[in-house]
């Protein structure tokens, strides 16, 4: 089936079988291997990407469902100069990653929440829900929570 995906602003005309999940198509057909696949059951969240601005599990969505849609992956977070985004810098500052396998998923679920909710810094319980969405086996979650809070506070300061 012929579909068109706009991934990180770039248009990809693709020919994919309906059975193929979005995560596999991003990795294999678009060559964007930043999106990781962990459990493929929708539990671990490593494959989280933004589809039309909303964080979704790329293992629980068919690529054909996204026909004509816009997808953002972890590769789309950096600026045009290749510099890390504020969120990525916050992850680095707070040591919010060790092995890094889960990091693309955490970055994308956090990026989606930061874009949707400018008051995130005032609602630590919402950050808890975001951190609780994905699995990390290294950090114990607390540094990830701090990193998302830091990015949310920086975003809020920048806009006020």
């Amino acid at each position: 089936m012929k579909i068109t995906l706009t991934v990180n602003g770039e248009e990809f005309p693709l020919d994919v079988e309906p059975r193929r999940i979005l995560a596999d198509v991003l990795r294999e057909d678009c060559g964007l291997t930043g999106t990781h696949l962990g459990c493929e059951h929708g539990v671990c969240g490593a494959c989280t990407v933004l589809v039309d601005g909303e964080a979704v599990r790329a293992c629980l969505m068919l690529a054909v469902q996204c026909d004509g849609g816009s997808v953002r992956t972890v590769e789309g977070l950096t600026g045009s100069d290749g510099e890390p985004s504020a969120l990525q810098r916050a992850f680095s500052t707070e040591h919010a990653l060790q092995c890094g396998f889960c990091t693309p998923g955490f970055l994308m679920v956090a990026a989606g929440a930061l874009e949707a909710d400018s008051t995130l810094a005032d609602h630590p319980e919402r950050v808890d829900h975001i951190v609780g969405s994905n699995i990390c086996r290294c950090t114990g979650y607390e540094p990830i929570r701090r990193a998302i809070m830091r990015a949310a506070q920086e975003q809020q300061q920048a806009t006020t």
Partner: protein
Amino acid sequence: MKPAAFDYVVPRTVPEAVDALGNGGRKAQVLAGGQSLLLEMHLERIRPDLVVDINRIPELDDMQITDNALRVGALIRHHVFESEQAVPGPLGSLFSLAVVNIAHPPIRSRGTMVGSFGWGHPASEWCAIAMALDADIRLQGPEGARTVAARDYFHGPLKTARRPGELITSVRYPLLAERTGVGFIEHRRTHFCFAQVAVAAVLIVHDGVISEARIGLVNCADRPLRAHAAEQALTGVGIGPPTDGYRLPEDHPFTRAGRIAAEQDAAPLAEPYADLEYRRHAIAVVAARTLCQAANDHRSRVGRTKGDSQ
């Protein structure tokens, strides 16, 4: 594993979707949110010949209030109900208390409320609320539309009254009157587990006396349940002074109702880490706590309306 091969169609209207589903009696599946379906397809426990993706049918992406009832279309996602204001009155509060127990934000942004009725899992929060509130389910099939009451809809684990070829277009809930107290509490082993038990409670109270109670039980049997016996035991009973629901006295009416729910209404199934005795105990405790929460909710609603009039 990856999903096995299937045909895929994207209808633009409900009649097109029903036509596609009825097409030649093939093993067809409706894809709305897909958060349970795609998992089952990964595991190849479900191997459809045809997937009918209803996500591009605009008329299903609709929520309306008519005749004091809320109609939720088949494409309304779980996350809509995170805001208490999405639905007016105490029903909105009940939904917002329940929805945060459904998986996590990235699942709630795709999964749909109506999809829970298509799946019919005994641990579904929405299905137990539908049982408690006498919701009804609207189905569209090759022979036309029909409506099935929630009490006649659930036949067992993942078994429902929906016939092959039928599409659930919406679910309708009655709105709750202004001072109705609502509660929802869920107990589970970890963040990533289904409910071991959850209870939805709705109390209609006049002058401190319960005139009607409605209790929905999640994962307390092979299907979503309504706790009729516990409800009857609460009718005409005073809600008493406020309490947080922890370590309630044995003779407290909510403790008694919880025990009745666990012993007479529930039919729990044993699991390796939760035998029957434990499950019944958990049901009784969670039900009593949820009733306390609903009673407290009623008190705060009464307080707020008094405050408004001053």
